């Protein structure tokens, strides 16, 4: 029995293909990009004003918290060095091991998944975007538990944003430090942090812009049962 030939020979009655009416300008407005930028700009202005007033900083900083992540603004950054994005991410694990650690399906870029790393509950992977490395980290912890820590100086901007319907922050400019458990602090590039798909997610890249980071976030998909992971 030649199944391949039999499958090819089947003529299927597919549902009629609808005439897609893209209305590009109108639909683009409904996608998160434009509202996000407007909201980001307004919030950036509000935050910049708030941070200019020293006594209001404590109140603002309490808001800068995502599940599993704290963002702390300090006058003096801790000692940190610049290292490659792929450094100290932990050993390579299989997709099954990563999913078990997260207790959740992974969010992955729409590519053949690069190797997955696991370090103390944080799953990380580095992929190429427009020829530049981008680090995606994922974690799933309960309220009140902080695994990742961002320490930002006064010159960095921390902007609350909405990403794919979830809460997030965009951290850019100035110097900020990324503290991953089990690794020495590292100077970080621009970072988008947000909650989606049941996870807390983090994208980092030197050349990332807010708009592009949000686009990348929108392209992430939840991994199929056996696609992620190697080794």
């Amino acid at each position: 029995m030649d199944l391949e030939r039999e499958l090819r020979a089947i003529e299927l009655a597919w549902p009629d293909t609808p005439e897609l009416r893209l209305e590009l300008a109108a639909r683009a407005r409904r996608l998160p990009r434009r509202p996000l930028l407007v909201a980001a700009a307004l919030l950036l202005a509000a935050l910049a004003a708030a941070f200019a007033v020293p006594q209001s900083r404590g109140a603002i900083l309490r808001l800068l918290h995502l599940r599993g992540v704290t963002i702390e603004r300090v006058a003096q950054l801790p000692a940190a060095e610049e290292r490659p994005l792929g450094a100290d991410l932990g050993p390579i694990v299989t997709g099954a091991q990563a999913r078990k650690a997260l207790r959740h399906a992974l969010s992955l870029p729409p590519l053949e998944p690069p190797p997955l790393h696991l370090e103390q509950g944080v799953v990380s992977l580095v992929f190429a975007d427009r020829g530049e490395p981008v680090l995606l980290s994922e974690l799933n912890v309960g309220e009140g538990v902080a695994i990742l820590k961002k320490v930002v100086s006064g010159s960095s901007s921390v902007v609350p944003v909405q990403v794919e319907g979830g809460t997030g922050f965009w951290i850019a400019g100035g110097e900020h430090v990324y503290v991953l458990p089990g690794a020495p602090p590292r100077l970080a590039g621009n970072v988008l942090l947000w909650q989606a798909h049941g996870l807390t997610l983090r994208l980092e890249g030197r050349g990332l812009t807010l708009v592009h980071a949000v686009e990348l976030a929108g392209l992430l998909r939840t991994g199929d049962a056996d696609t992620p992971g190697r080794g």
Partner: protein
Amino acid sequence: MEGRPREEQELVLRAQRGDERAYEELVRAHQEIAFRVAYLITRNAADAEEASQDGFVKAWRALGRFRTAEPLRPWLLRIVANESRNRRRSAGRREHLAIRAAASPGEAAPSPEEAAVGSDERRRLLAALDELPDQARLVLACRYLLGLSEDETASALGVRRGTVKSRSARALARLREGYGPRA
């Protein structure tokens, strides 16, 4: 994809410069295959339509990063398939495909008995395919029902070409078990 018409490259270049009409022509050229890929994944025509619409809009926004030397179809299919997976996940349901085997035109006219047997076997084969796990079902559907190349299937499923080969072989073996011998 080999032999890509020069016309498509020109349309892509125009679309990259913001020409919506050029992009709409590209969409018209690829919407059927994209919709069918979306339908295989979502198993629902309304979801497939929405996924295709959203996928093509996202592709429009990302078109500036598309390399014109590359074939467009796998790139579009990857984006639409990604939208479809997201939509299906949020819908959280599993539906059976409503596609059915149609009469096969172009073949030598069978006798009524042969036609009945052939049609019944196709239905059984489709039913067996529909019962396969998603990964197996999708790789076979993309390769054999939609006629996508290995590269296009790899793009749509977000895996390597080698993975398409190995998954296809395993899926065919599974399908053979489920389909069983001819009566």
